[in-house]
């Protein structure tokens, strides 16, 4: 039981990071971006390449693990580079595609994002192939936190703890940005009323660019973390897309706090459903959560607008 909860929190962290980006673009650009999952995939793969470059540049053949973790400082550098590059990718897709469609119907943007998602995913597959990649082959020993006779016990690796910890830190930082900085206030203002934001002096296109950068960078970090505790595969982001949407809608579109809570709820629901329905149907849990929230409370837990 405890083990399932811990696993759910790890998966939930990855979902939360991705869902926050989704909820931000959803509320500020006003469309459901089916490409959000692919930013996670691209982030994970760009980190694979960045890691190779960093290792080659420093002349180190293999990564020396950092403390209790399975990876070295080079992966942290690679992750930051990947986040920056994924942000550039998002800006590029926006400039090429979404920007040109913004004046039209919102659903056209959804179709465009659906097309962009498939193109991006298959481009990864073309560039990197379908075989899984790993940042490190280092095997980590899980730490036993709770003995086996208490609720089934709990073992967790330092990497997994880092995933949960880093997610919480990033979310607090983002919450601070949104409530305490001018950019954050401008983002909230734009989400609420773009026309008023413009007459109040907000450069809405600038806010949109900032939103892409934040959303894509967080997605890239989520992708790298998913790769750290699992493998890097072309389907990584696509398989998380349904949980991402479920988490964002569960939390209420536009609410960062909601997306984080939603992410953990979906992660826990997936993990706890495994003994009931079997691991192969784990992905269907997110759909059940989604249908449930749409039927019971379509504005979500923290939602302000329908």
């Amino acid at each position, binding site marked *: 039981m405890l083990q399932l909860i811990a696993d759910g929190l790890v998966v939930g962290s990855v979902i939360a990071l991705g869902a926050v980006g989704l909820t931000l673009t959803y509320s500020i650009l006003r469309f459901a971006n089916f490409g959000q999952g692919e930013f996670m995939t691209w982030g994970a793969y760009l980190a694979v390449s960045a890691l190779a470059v960093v290792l080659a540049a420093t002349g180190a053949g293999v990564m020396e693990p950092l403390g209790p973790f399975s990876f070295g400082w080079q992966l942290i550098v690679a992750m930051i580079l990947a986040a920056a590059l994924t942000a550039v990718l998002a800006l590029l897709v926006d400039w090429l595609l979404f920007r040109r469609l913004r004046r039209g119907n919102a659903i056209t943007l959804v179709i465009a994002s659906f097309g962009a998602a498939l193109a991006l995913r298959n481009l990864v597959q073309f560039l990197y*192939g379908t075989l899984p990649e790993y940042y490190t082959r280092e095997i980590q020993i899980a730490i036993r936190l709770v003995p086996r006779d208490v609720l089934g016990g709990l073992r967790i690796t330092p990497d997994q703890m880092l995933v949960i910890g880093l997610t919480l830190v990033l979310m607090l930082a983002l919450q601070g940005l949104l409530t305490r900085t001018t950019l954050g206030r401008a983002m909230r203002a734009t989400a609420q009323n773009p026309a008023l934001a413009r007459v109040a002096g907000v450069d809405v296109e600038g806010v949109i660019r900032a939103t892409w950068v934040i959303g894509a960078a967080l997605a890239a970090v989520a992708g790298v973390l998913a790769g750290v505790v699992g493998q890097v595969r072309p389907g990584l982001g696509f398989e998380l897309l349904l949980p991402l949407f479920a988490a964002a809608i569960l939390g209420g579109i536009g609410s960062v706090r909601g997306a984080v809570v939603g992410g953990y709820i979906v992660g826990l629901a997936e993990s706890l459903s495994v003994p009931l329905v079997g691991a192969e149907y784990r992905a269907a849990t997110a759909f059940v959560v989604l249908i449930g929230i749409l039927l019971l409370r379509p504005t979500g837990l923290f939602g302000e607008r329908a």
Partner: protein
Amino acid sequence: MELLPVLNYLAFFLVFAGIFAVMALGLNLQWGFCGLFNVGVAGFVAVGAYASALLTGPPEPERFGGFGLPVAVGWLGAMGFSGLAALVVGLAALRLREDYLAITTFGIAVVIQLVALNAQALTGGPFGIQSIPKPFADALGTGLGWNLAYLGLVLAVLGLAWWALERLVASPWGRVLRAIREDELAAASLGKRASAFRLQSFVIGCMLMGLAGAMYAHFVGYIAPEDFLPVLTFQIWAMLIVGGSGRNAGAVLGAVLVWAIWSAAGTLIREALPAAEQARGAALQVVLIGVLIAAILVLRPRGVLGERATVSRHAG
């Protein structure tokens, strides 16, 4: 050049184009006439294909189904089951904002894919279902004659679907649909009835997709989960967007055009790339179609034929 293989390929190509056209007609009813965004096309096609395969196939000891019913019953069953799936999804999502339908249909397609892959006792799992009966194969064999006969059948179904849709759209029911799509005020004044109209068009569109799935199953003779991946949804969308949504001719023209581009790109990649790179080449095929969709949306938003009316007169 041998005439027979060319004819055979042409028949094969047109059967697929016809099946895709039926799917595109279903999607056009939903999106073109009603503004409903369905991202789960592949899921509803899969439901139809599996339903007909199970109803008409020979009994299998390892698996549910195999009732050996006539193919016609299988096709009706395909429409029934995909319509039922659509009803469930529609009831949950149609009364909400339009993009929630997109997310929900995306979700149902993922779940259907999971069931197809894992419910061995029902769907045969990753190996799928073999020996799905081919209608008239007893009399015609499986050569060119049969291909042409099946092509005739597909075109007949396509024609019937077209005729029925044109009738529907011209009927008072269709006029209400257009009013709902083009005028928020009309939609609001219809209130609950507007969502009933939307639901009806969503279900009918999905039934056509299910029927097309059944036609696919009985043409190829076997189905597996990988036949119904999201890329299928994507192809159908590309067809509708390229042809121009809002008119049935656009949907059918788009189906032929995109299927031709898709096949040509596939052949080109097979010829150009060494055997070891084929899997990666297939990915490139999808990228090309993705770029095509994006380019059409940006450069020619009304498609090749153009739409009769714009999606919305008021910028979102």
